[in-house]
């Protein structure tokens, strides 16, 4: 469970997060959406302890301030792949494996993406999509209880994107808590359970996707969100 209590964060007077109160229950699949600069990345970074926020943020009922052990429970996939370009895929995997105490690995997606076949290749020689596959494989590698994925399907082809989505469904069914951000709502609206809508750092809406569709009388999430924002304004 991830609990946000009065979470605020400002940069140069600009409020990136404004009094966020939110509880992400265990075993839920949450889709985080919002326009550009709405605070999505700051919200994710606050969970990972990469930005200091005001308020109380707890993961599995433990306040995360000044601790780092809780990150053993989190698998994070950043938007862009950022390892040193001169390293090989195998070296990257070896490096990240050494950074965790967890020694049980979930390498299913590694094989499904056929990353095992490109282990000796240097990152500098890989395409953007392949780098993104390695990125995703690292997030799942430690079989974490919480998965945080920032635009996971960006740069992936249709087949890989489906493999990733199937994996996410499987992990959710196993009881993992999932938080995904995406600009392509159609990709996750059928598999996500909850939607978190941020706008200008504020929590605009949080609830079940089907409730939002019913409220707005729409069948597509994209239209429902647009209607909801109009209704709110």
């Amino acid at each position, binding site marked *: 469970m991830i609990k946000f209590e009065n979470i605020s964060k400002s940069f140069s007077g600009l409020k990136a997060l404004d009094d966020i109160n939110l509880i992400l229950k265990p075993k839920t699949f949450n889709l985080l959406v919002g326009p550009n600069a709405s605070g999505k990345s700051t919200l994710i970074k606050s969970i990972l302890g990469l930005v200091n926020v005001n308020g109380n943020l707890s993961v599995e009922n433990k306040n995360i301030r000044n601790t780092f*052990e809780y*990150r053993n429970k989190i698998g994070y996939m*950043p938007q862009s792949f*950022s390892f040193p*370009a001169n390293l090989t895929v195998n070296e990257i995997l070896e490096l990240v494996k050494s*950074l965790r*105490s967890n020694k049980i690995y979930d390498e299913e997606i590694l094989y499904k993406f056929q990353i095992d076949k490109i282990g000796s290749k240097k990152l500098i020689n890989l395409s953007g999509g392949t780098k993104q596959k390695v990125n995703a494989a690292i997030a799942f590698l430690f079989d974490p209880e919480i998965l945080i994925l920032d635009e996971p399907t960006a740069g992936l082809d249709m087949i890989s994107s489906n493999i990733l989505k199937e994996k996410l469904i499987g992990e959710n069914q196993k009881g993992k808590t999932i938080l995904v951000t995406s600009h392509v709502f159609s990709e996750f609206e059928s598999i996500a359970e909850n939607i978190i809508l941020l706008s200008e750092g504020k929590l605009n809406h949080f609830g079940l996707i089907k409730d939002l569709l019913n409220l707005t009388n729409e069948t597509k999430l994209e239209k429902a969100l647009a209607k909801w924002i109009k209704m709110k304004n």
Partner: protein
Amino acid sequence: MDQNEKLKMLFKISLFQTKSNISSKWIVFYFIFFFAASYVSLSFTHETSKAAVNLMNAVLFIVPLASLLYGTIYFYNNIDYIIFILSFPVKRPVIYISLFSGLLIPMAIGFLTGIILPVLLFNANSFLSDFYIFLPLIITGIYLHLILILYNFQIIFQLLSILLKFQIVKSLHLLKNFYNLFLIFVMFSSQVF
């Protein structure tokens, strides 16, 4: 996290940073520069002690400049990687020390091999006696790398913490510009004084 685990992490990050940096074109260029300087110096003077004095002048000027410049490039290019590593359950000092050693070791290797190889090529028979003449130069070079890279890291991390604390910086671009000004100042003052 016990001490062994911390050391293991530190070793791994340092090892892979070193591996990545050592094949960087900047470090290769750094090696070529010292190799050429050492080779030319030895071939013109034909006397190891004179060559060592000539090289000391180059070392005193080039090492601080390269440490500051490459240190900044390295830090700036790896910012996303550092942020990603920070999202792992690793203590901040472990990351700091590994990044520092991951930069220090390749630069020191580039410098050392660049200086020593020509000595070996010129007179392999008297290498040991020549090595003793070069020893003060090597110690000075390594010491300069050590303190200047540390100094560079300290300034970058302190600037980051100050700017973030007072929330002056929204993005790292402001920090980059600020630091560039500082580098220009350092280069200007090293030329003047």
